[in-house]
């Protein structure tokens, strides 16, 4: 049933299985494509647009995390145009919220920060929007700082798909979008939250953290969340 296909990534011919995404194929073959909203073991949403690649014969750029491979597909993972788009996307993420890495619990272990470093984002060319955003400290063990949220929805999917609690959702539109817990209830009052902390581990930035961690102290165990799904699939 699993149909084998041949694709080219940056010129190299690679054997893949139909239905796999470009990102999955690239990752299993040690080809680097940046990604932020993608997390192994979760459904894909194509929210961050950092994984955009060029596909020959297709005029527009396609997100590698949601585009399935097919026979003969030829992908370029990098080009001057892709680089400039990725840099732009990263800068816009920074401009949208208040990221002060110097005082952030995740500094040094943050996927957004790492991506920015990898892509040479040393300054942001767009005006910062400095939104006034709250910090939800109501949960006894965890804290949500909207200032550092990139709306990747990894927490939403982790909670719904892995834990099965579906505490989180994204409300609003565009720059007004906000992560909400249980129909706008403070996290600490969300009755469906099991306090498992998987969302915190899945969050790529310092937006979700365990309470009591100081600057640079919050390391996360994302692989543990991904492993849960792969173990279930194996059953």
């Amino acid at each position, binding site marked *: 049933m699993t149909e084998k296909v041949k694709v080219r990534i940056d010129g190299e011919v690679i054997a893949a299985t139909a239905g796999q995404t470009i990102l999955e194929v690239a990752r299993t073959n040690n080809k680097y494509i940046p990604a932020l909203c993608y997390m192994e073991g979760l459904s894909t949403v194509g929210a961050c647009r950092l994984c955009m690649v060029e596909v020959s014969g297709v005029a527009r750029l396609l997100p590698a995390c949601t585009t399935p491979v097919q026979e003969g597909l030829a992908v370029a993972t990098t080009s001057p145009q892709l680089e400039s788009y990725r840099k732009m996307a990263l800068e816009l993420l920074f401009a949208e919220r208040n990221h002060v890495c110097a005082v952030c619990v995740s500094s040094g272990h943050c996927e957004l920060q790492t991506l920015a470093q990898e892509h040479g984002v040393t300054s942001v060319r767009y005006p910062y929007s400095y939104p006034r955003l709250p*910090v939800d400290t*109501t949960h006894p063990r965890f804290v949500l700082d909207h200032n550092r949220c990139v709306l990747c929805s990894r927490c939403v999917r982790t909670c719904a798909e892995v834990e099965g609690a579906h505490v989180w959702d994204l409300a609003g539109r565009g720059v007004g979008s906000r992560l909400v817990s249980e129909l706008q209830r403070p996290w600490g009052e969300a009755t469906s939250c099991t306090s498992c902390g998987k969302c915190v581990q899945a969050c790529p930035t310092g937006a979700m953290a365990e*309470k009591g*961690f*100081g600057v640079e*102290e919050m390391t996360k165990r994302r692989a543990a969340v991904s492993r849960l799904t792969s173990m279930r699939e194996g059953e």
Partner: protein
Amino acid sequence: MATRKATADTRRRTTPAAAGVESAGDAQATQPVEAQRPAMQTVTINHVSRIEGHAKITIKLDDAGRVTDTQFHVTQIRGFEKFVEGRPYYEMPSITSRICGICPVSHLLASSKACDEIMAVRIPAAAAQLRELIHCAQFVQSHALSFFHLSAPDLLLGMDADPAHRNVAGLLESHPEALRDGIALRKFGQQVIERLAKERVHPSWMVPGGVNAPLDPQVRIKTLEELPGAMAIVQRTLAMWKRALDGFPEEIEAFSNFPTMYCGLVGPDGSLRLYDGNMRFIGADGAIIADQVRPEDYATYIGEASMTDSYLKAPYYKPIGFPDGIYRVGPLARLNVADRCGTPLADAELELYRARFGRIVQSGFHYHYARLIEALYALERMEQLLANPAILATKVRAHAGVNNLEGTGIIEAPRGTLIHNYKVNENGAITWANLIVATGHNNLAITRGVHQVAERFISGKKIEEAALNRVSALVRAYDPCLSCSTHQLGVAAVAITLVGPDGEVFDEVTT
């Protein structure tokens, strides 16, 4: 000239006339006096160089060119306390340490202590020892910076030396050994901080509940090896400074040489404390006015007046009121307040210091001398702390949630008493914060000191080099950290202006 009486005190009681008082209602009393002064000239000193931050000094002259009033204003905006509202309390050490690139360790410690209170924990003994150790290292580096890098050009080359040479480059030519000592001493302090915290600026090693990693035994060995060298530098410098002091009779006499109260932390036995201890207030005559004031009671004793022309608040001793409750903090104050240092070498030096200048030393010029004695004390404390193997214990952090809705942490920063006071809600989000920094406590004394120096050295419509530099040097003696005071990051600078009877600007200088 040399026989001039050093009695500027009582007349100067009303000097901070430009202060608008928020809490006390006596500001109006000074207003009419202002209004009645028809002919007045003003000298404004902008950008006093070689201090940390931004400040401006205005000196008003009457028709005869006599000083009538002085103001020491800080020109940046506070707003820090508002900005942290809503943040989890345990982020405060790292956030507040960003107030200042000069004294991050002081803020980290005061903030961590306030957080310890919110958590209601007693931190492990080794953690307290390690915090004191890094604090002492910060004292050494900060005092070295103040004495050698910032003030030595005036002190070693002379107040009247050619300004083109009265700087670090000039020092390199004439006093290379002193400069080398200064650099080495500061480096020693910085390296200890780096070794302990793995980062020199804004170390994240100090955390609520203790520190986040135990002491590496190698760091203990290395630091113990280097301590004698650092000690020798301070002793050399002290010997040199004790000889040099005779060359500054006018500065000693006129550099805010007036009676004030003093405030500093002391241990249960009245000895000098930098990291822990309770507050003691003494009067100008040395009488203890309040003793063993616990951190949580600070607001009973300290009031804060807002100055209309400066963002720097002016704290005062509440039971006495504003502005008579003026007190000083920092090295001079600590050595006045403490019965003794508590370490042998520093105590021997303290005895000589007191034998020469009295049990209570009033002249702001002696901040320099006091700073050197404290540097010696800090090195001795480091040695004592490191000599005890208990400092290697691996339990260095207490964990807890919110157990108190308010916490206050007080330490002696190199520049003086530093107070962090936070209130949180049940979830640990900051609802209110108040910070009182060393330069804030000294604000009134600096203003009054500028007046005294200006009166002594300024005459006529021009800011002469000698006057300009002495006013700046007075400010530098207090080693003010203006980025701390205004809770804003800033570049080192202050400026001076001279305004005539009709508000006309006579002269303006940036040093």
